[in-house]
């Protein structure tokens, strides 16, 4: 049962299942899907935070105007019809009929505009869209317009963005909340409703089926297509301990385990009644991030020497394990996505401590210790840190590994000060592939003022990235994306540690899993 399912089959199965549910003989017993989510849901506002768990929560209860399908193309979701003027400056959208929020109010253009404004104030891509936007106009209850000041190449891609922050549509009164404050009510038009009274932070979240939702007719394809709730209730129970979580699934106390550690897979994949598969076809990309402001990594030659030591196979084998869950990937965009290439990748393919040692000798490296922040509560990143430390040491670096928890790391990485004042030289993280599919990703910024932690500084890179945003033809986009990549490897902005896939595991009576970089809970049924 392991491996890939063909989406066509899946869709057919889904349709059969939905037909079956119409028959009057179906039992009235409540169907519950018991899920172990990948993290504890701490924050309910998907605009206020970029946390993936909050995004997944929001996908259950909110809907989006457009949505990315499995080919990374934006498809209409709440929108029925749309058109763009020839000059690309005026876009007109009409909402589908019958869309209603959980409180019974119809979804209107006003709600859409308020929601987009709040998202556009917060999200990177949203900010770019808003910068190109003169105004958003509500033509009538169901029709709205974007009036742009420049032709923006990524209108549908932005409002159909699949990962954080996703432009979810909320009622205007809720979307009126300042983007810097959390919303206080969870009302959407999505396939499930959030049950605030049953939410126990740190443990349980309960969603019930939204009887009034109007799904599209198309079969589901990633975030696009019909969002049909096939269970009456989805219950998330957070497990802090992986072993306990695995045992609960094997004992049938849980139906669905979102992100089991790959090291549990040998047990799970042979357990009776348990199905394991890779749900997200593009997976995650491991990164080693240099601090470009501080020595020794303020010197591009030293960064390049360090990159040469980072052999992807070692990181992947050590931190992920079983080779069916990882592959090497020498593209800054995840392998398997449209812009992926190996342009300029010779350097990072080196993978040799000896070569790195050689290269380091030629630099002005003076033995300044490299401070690596090691998040001990995130096993994969903790392992990455240990591996980097060992490699850099063998290459001739002086390394100081500092153990801390993730929350200390995320606050310390914001510090630009020297190491003696709480600064740092290197940390590891991963990006989910869907977040780094194009040059606009914040991870690729070359602007030291506004860019991502590590503060790479490169004007050429920034120019290429803004060219990309304005490029309209697919060929131009592809060409610019390659140049961005060459530039990124050239300045050794970050180390790339490989592409890895997070499996899901579930009981064999769960059907209808949608292949996607994001975990969705519609279309899943329990038989």
């Amino acid at each position, binding site marked *: 049962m392991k491996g890939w399912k063909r989406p066509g089959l899946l869709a057919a199965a889904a349709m059969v299942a939905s037909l079956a549910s119409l028959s009057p003989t179906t039992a009235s017993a409540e169907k519950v899907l018991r899920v172990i989510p990948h993290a504890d849901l701490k924050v309910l506002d998907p605009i206020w935070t*970029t946390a993936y768990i909050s995004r997944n929560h929001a996908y259950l209860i909110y809907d989006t105007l457009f949505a990315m399908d499995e080919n990374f193309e934006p498809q209409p979701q709440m929108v029925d019809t749309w058109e763009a003027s020839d000059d690309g400056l005026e876009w007109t959208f009409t909402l589908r009929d019958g869309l209603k929020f959980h409180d019974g109010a119809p979804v209107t253009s006003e709600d859409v505009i308020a929601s987009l404004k709040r998202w556009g104030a917060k999200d990177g891509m949203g900010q770019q869209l808003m910068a190109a936007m003169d105004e958003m106009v509500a033509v009538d209850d169901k029709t709205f317009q974007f009036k742009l000041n420049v032709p923006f190449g990524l209108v549908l891609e932005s409002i159909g963005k699949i990962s954080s922050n996703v432009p979810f549509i909320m009622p205007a009164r809720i979307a009126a909340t300042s983007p*810097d404050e959390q919303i*206080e009510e969870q009302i959407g038009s999505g396939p499930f409703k959030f049950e605030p009274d049953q939410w126990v*932070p740190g443990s349980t979240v309960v969603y019930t089926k939204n009887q009034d939702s109007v799904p599209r007719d198309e079969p589901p394809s990633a975030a696009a297509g019909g969002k049909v709730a096939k269970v009456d209730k989805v219950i998330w129970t957070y497990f802090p301990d992986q072993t306990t979580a695995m045992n609960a699934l094997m*004992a049938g106390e849980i139906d669905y385990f979102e992100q089991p550690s790959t090291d549990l897979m040998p047990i799970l994949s042979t357990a009776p009644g348990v199905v394991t598969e890779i749900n997200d076809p593009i997976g995650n990309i491991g990164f080693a991030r240099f601090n470009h402001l501080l020595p020794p990594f303020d010197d591009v030659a030293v960064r390049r020497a360090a990159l040469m030591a980072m052999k992807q196979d070692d990181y992947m084998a050590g931190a992920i394990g079983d080779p069916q869950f990882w592959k090497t990937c020498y593209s800054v965009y995840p392998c398997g996505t449209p812009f992926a290439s190996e342009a300029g990748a010779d350097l990072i393919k080196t993978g040799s401590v000896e070569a790195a040692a050689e290269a380091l000798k030629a630099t002005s490296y003076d033995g300044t210790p490299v401070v690596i922040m090691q998040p001990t509560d995130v096993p994969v990143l903790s392992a990455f840190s240990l591996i980097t430390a060992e490699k850099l040491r063998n290459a001739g670096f002086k390394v100081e590994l500092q153990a801390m928890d*993730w*929350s*200390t790391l995320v*606050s310390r990485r914001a510090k630009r000060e020297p190491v003696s004042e709480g600064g740092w030289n290197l940390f590891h993280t991963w990006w989910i592939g869907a977040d780094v599919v194009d040059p606009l990703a*914040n991870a690729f910024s070359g602007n030291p003022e506004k860019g991502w932690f590590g503060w790479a500084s490169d004007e050429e890179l920034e120019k290429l990235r803004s060219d990309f945003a304005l490029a309209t033809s697919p060929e131009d986009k592809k060409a610019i994306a390659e140049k961005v990549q060459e530039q990124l490897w050239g300045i050794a902005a970050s180390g790339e540690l490989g592409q890895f896939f997070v499996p899901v595991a579930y009981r064999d009576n769960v059907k209808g899993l949608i292949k996607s970089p994001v975990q969705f809970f519609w279309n899943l049924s329990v038989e």
Partner: protein
Amino acid sequence: MLGYIAKRILATIPVMIIVAVFVFLMLRLAPGDPAAVIAGDYATAEDVERIREQLGLNEPIPVQLLQWIGQLAQGDLGQSIFSKKPVLELIGQRIEPTLLLALTTIVFSVLVAVPLGTIAAWRAGSLIDRGVMLFSVGGFSVPVFVLGYILIYVLAMQLKIMPVQGYKSPFTDGIGLFFYHITLPTLTLSVIFIALIARMTRASVIEVLEEDYIRTARAKGQSEFKILLRHALRNAAVPVVTVIGIGIALLIGGVVVTESVYNIPGLGRLVLDAVLARDYPIIQGLILFFSFIYIMINLLIDLSYTLFDPRIRY
């Protein structure tokens, strides 16, 4: 007596204040930053700064301390930085599993440990005694989580007679399911407690058995069972109850681990998650709450001495 109780209760106030200030200062001198955690992986330094400002974390520490103490005085523990739920409500949601787990552990431990300790004392130096002592030393020597894993592996995964994890409420899920799910966590947590109480019982009963009045009772031909039950145990009760009071702190530590191993949605995990996320109000509130419980239980135990030992009078 009443005056004494009032005095004891009043005496707990400065202790609570010390705990409060200590915990507050410890957290605020921390490098971790809840704002950075909230902001998420994409956030820029400006985002983090904005959230800090909004959460009031940029106020000077003395100001924050005074604000918090002011809240406390009104019985308000504040609200979670993340979920925005009041800390008291979060405690309310989580207290049942923790409380009941602590209770089953104490009851089970006493039921097992007191007879064990008494028998060991009665036959001090015998094989039984050595067995009990070895168990009680061993109980102190195995980490709780290792014990938990072993129990799950054997009883739940191999023999399949126990559930792996979870908690069922006796009020909503039924008393049968409750006991079915609480048995393994209770066993896990009890081992160290049984060890502790059995040792103390043994030591105290040995002590009492030396006393003259026991000799008198024996000389009068009373049965050994009666002697143990009526004289020895009754007089050994004070130290045993004391050790249970001291053990509460140990129990709370064990609960944190046990709740993680068995996925019980209790207070222990709440505080652990809060520490990792730097959810200051929850950490502060919970440590204060645990300290309060500890102080109150020990106060009750002190007061209960009159019950067990008629010689103690206030």
